[in-house]
Each structure stands twice: as structure tokens, then as C-alpha cells.
């Protein structure tokens, strides 16, 4: 069964990483994804893996920009108590999907 492991502190760490890069350029995305995947599986990620994750991240950003109500739904239930600038909220919501994937990898769970 799907184990939905919502470890929010990981996600905050990754969002922090995203914030450091200031602008979500393709290169910054890749650096963050590399960092995130390495954090999850303790090895150097392959380029192909990063490409797969980047596709998810980009599609999620588009989805959330087209449907802004999803951003509030995703963040509203979990991130109460944190002050987040509205520009960052969409980023956080998009990275939620990415980190959800990372935490449910066989390699993350199994090793």
C-alpha cells in the first residue's frame, strides 16, 4: 500500500534550499533536486533521475498556477503557524508533490 509519509521538516529544509537560490531557474531546480534526492537515498543521483523529478516539479508548478485554490488546500491544512510569502506558497505546494515522491521511493523506505 501507499505509505504516505509526510515528514514536513524535510520539506521545509528543501523549501529553504529553494529559497536560497532565490529564483527557480532550471539550474537551481536541478541543484535542489540533487540535494533532496541525495538526502533521501544517500548516494549521488543520476542525471536521468533528476530529469524525471524535474518534469514532475515543472508540471506541478503549472498545475498550481492554473489552479491556485490547490495551493491553499495543500498548505492550509499543514503549515498553519508559519508565515509564508504568497510567492513561496506555490513553490512549497509544488515541492510537496516532489518530496512526497522522494519519500515513497523504494530506496528511501528500504535502505
Amino acid at each position, binding site marked *: *500500500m*501507499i505509505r504516505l509519509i509526510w515528514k514536513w521538516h524535510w520539506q521545509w529544509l528543501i523549501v529553504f534550499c529553494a529559497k536560497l537560490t532565490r529564483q527557480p531557474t532550471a539550474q537551481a531546480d536541478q541543484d535542489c533536486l540533487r540535494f533532496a534526492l541525495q538526502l533521501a537515498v544517500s548516494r549521488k543521483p543520476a542525471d536521468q533521475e533528476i530529469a524525471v523529478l524535474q*518534469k*514532475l516539479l515543472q*508540471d*506541478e508548478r503549472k498545475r498550481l498556477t492554473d489552479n491556485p485554490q*490547490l495551493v491553499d488546500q*495543500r498548505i492550509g491544512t499543514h503549515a498553519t503557524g508559519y508565515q509564508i510569502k504568497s510567492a513561496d506558497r506555490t513553490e512549497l505546494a509544488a515541492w510537496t508533490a516532489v518530496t512526497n515522491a522522494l519519500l515513497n521511493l523504494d530506496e528511501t523506505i528500504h535502505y
Partner: protein
Amino acid sequence: MSRHFSETQHPAIQPTPIGRRTLLQRTGFGLGAFALTDLFQADHSRAVAKERRHLRSPHFAPVAKNVIYVHMVGAPSHLDLFDHKPVLQQREGQDCPQELFESGKFAFVRKLPKLLGTAQEKKYQFRRCGESGLMLSNLLPHLQQVADEMCVVKSLHTDEFNHGPAQMFMLSGFGRFGRPSIGSWLSYGLGSENQNLPAFVVLVTGNVLGAGSAAWGSGFLPSQHQGVEFRTQGDAVLFLSNPAGIESNSRRQIIDTVNQLNQQQLADVADPEIATRIQQYELAYRMQTSVPELMDITSEPDHIHQMYGTQPGKTHFANNCLLARRLVERGVRFVQLFDQGWDAHGSVFGNLANKTQQVDQPIAALIKDLKQRGLLEQTLVVWSAEFGRTPFAQGDFTSEASRKKLGRDHHKDAFCVWMAGGGVRGGFSFGQTDELGYKIVQDPVHVHDFNATLLHQLGLDHTKLTFRYQGRQYRLTDIAGQVVRPLLARV
């Protein structure tokens, strides 16, 4: 045509029409498309071809396709429900024969106890039922109506005398953790007929049994064969619904991403458990649609609800019986119901009256309902427990008040289970115990024999359904068991 599973390796890397590895490698990044086409397209030929890949051939033509296995957790007093003992009633209050008492092992009773017969009131008495004249307790008025469908084994015996080990022994053929349960063996041996639901589903009323979820565990079999518990309140499966703000298309893409990355991992290390996980994520995604539809019993007509005595929205044994039928209709191979609360060390008759009232109508309705839908022939219904209860009392006879509190201890040397449908002889009783119900005097049936018979009805030879683990072949029946042919309608 017989097929030795023993010759093969792990099922995830077994040769299928298209090797599973090849399948995954070829489709690679488009795995998600599989589930989507199944859900949204009516491309039957492809769907059928895909299902075949997941089905395995039995060893010989099966009589039954599915099993609904009801385990009465705690063990009901078979002496007061199925094995009528008038002599025990006459001898109530007398000392238990010393040699009998000393021959057994009991959980609580240590001093020589006194015999206890079935209560004399009319509601506890037995009656000959149906054309077959099968003797059943008046506590089971609804089952009395379907007596001609029932095949009662009065001479079952087990190796374990405490709940947890006995539950494991009954369900996995081994008194400790670590072996696959019957449903897992069937999932492994026959596969699933519905790719949108697990092959092995578990429904529980009352507390989970002492053996815990190991009772529906897959042991050393790949974990895709373990039973999946459906809860009857809230989400049927934990986290079945998407969280807020995650819509179905996001969920689909997340699963695709995970599966693509897992697929690369599988290609690198070839661990079959990764293949299992990929399949399970796909199944879980499909279950997000299939399970809510399945669990919605309010769609059933009123007369069905009245027949079962269901209470929609609550956790109730009747709901689970109705769900069992719905699961079998959808091709789920093995549905396991557990009902807690039968362990009557005290007040055995009060307990029985209460518990039988909860289960009698629903389980009889299940049999009638399967029959009217033409499903009973292919569905084996089993009433089982981990052991029986002693013919002697636990407690003392000194006062009227203490007499009312008398119970029965665990008894492993003789107890009853029954089956219906699935090609077993209806209105039939097999085996015999002595006049006190203490020891078997005719046709003993060991748990391994019973399980061998169950597999036989599904077209599986229990000696051939094996899995190699830690250097040897394992089976449900260990190194014993014989099919009890007299129980079968067609031998």
C-alpha cells in the same frame, strides 16, 4: 496438468508470457498509462490479456474459485452449537474422568473439574434440521434453515492450545509467526481475478485477534500476497483518499515518478520486492476508485439489508458478510472475516446467546444470497475457530450464582468447523467424538488435512503448492495433510 511451483523461483522473476522484468523495462516510463487505459478505456481484449498474466493455472480443474473464511476469534463452544452431547448433559456436575483430564493440556483449569452439559432451556437445545436432519443448536435459528448446505466436521483437532499460536496454526499451518496464511498461499498459487482489488481482503469486527496481522501475513512469500484489511469506518484503507489539494492527476504523476525511479532501481539491483512495490502502488491507485464503490453498501436494495440485518455506517458483522459477497462478486479470491469475542471462560451460555445473535442471521443470509446469485457452487464458505471448548466447566458449582458464571476452557483435541458451497457435501456431518465430546472416536481430521481439503477445492495440490525459502520447500500443510475426500460432493 500439474504445475510445480517448487521448480520456479520467486514469482516476480518467474517466466510469464512476457517476463515481468521485460514488461517493466519495455514499458518503462509509460507504466502509468497501463492503469489509465484500464480505467478509462473499454479495451476488453487487452484488459483480458493483461489479467491472464496475473492469473496462474491451478494443478487440476478447481471446483471453487473463491473462499469466504469466517474465523470466530476466541473459539466458540462447539459442544453447545454443533456437537450435540446428551450424555454430557445427563452427567453435568460429575467429576471429569481423571484419565481424560490428565491426557490433555489446558490454559487455565488445573484441578480436576466437573462436567458441564449444554443448558437445559429450550433456546439452547438442539434440533434436527432440513431434509438431512443435521443437528444444530436453537441458538442458530437462521443457520438451521440452511442446514442442508452445511458440511460439519466434528472431529477436527489442532496442535496448539492457546489463542495466538492456535490461530497461526489454523491459518498458516504453523504455531508461530513467519509462515504465509491460507489467503496468501491462494493469492500466490492462483493470482487475482480483479486487477483493481487485492486478491486477499480482511474484514474485522471487534478487537484484532491475538495473533495480530500476522494472521493474514504473507510470511516469506512476496508481500504482494499479504491480506489487505479494509476498515468499515472512515477510509476503507488508510490514506485511500487523496490529501487536500492533491488531485487525481497529481497523484497519478507522483506515482508515475516514483515508479519510474523504482524501475531504474529494479533494473540495477533486481530485487523482486521492488517489482512488488511498483505493482502495489499501481494497485493502490486503482483502489482509490474501486474501493469506495465496493464499500458503499447503501447501493444495495432494502430486502438485502433486511436479509443480512446490516447497519450501514457502523462496524458490524452483518455489513462484513454483505461486503464479503460483494468482494467475491468482484473476483476477490480470499475474503477473511474475523469476529472477536467468543472466548467464554466464564458465562459460556450468556456469551453464546449474545454472540450467536450477532452472527447467525448474517452468515445464513450470506449463504442464501450466494445461492440465489448462483455463486455458492464456486464459493467455499468456511466457519472456523482456533480450537474448541472443554466438556468440563471452568468455575465452580457451589452456588446458583457461581453456576451461572460457568465457562469452558480451551480444548484442542476435538472441535467443529463447517463449510458450505464450494463443492462440499451439504447436510453432512463427518467424524465423531465420544459421548462427552472429549476425544475423537471416528475419522479424525487434523488442521493440515482440513487445509489440504480447502486447497483441493480450489484446484491446488497441497503437496505441490510450495515455496523455496531458507534452503527448502515450504507448504501450507508442512509435511503432512491428506485431502478429506468424504467431505467432497464430487470426489
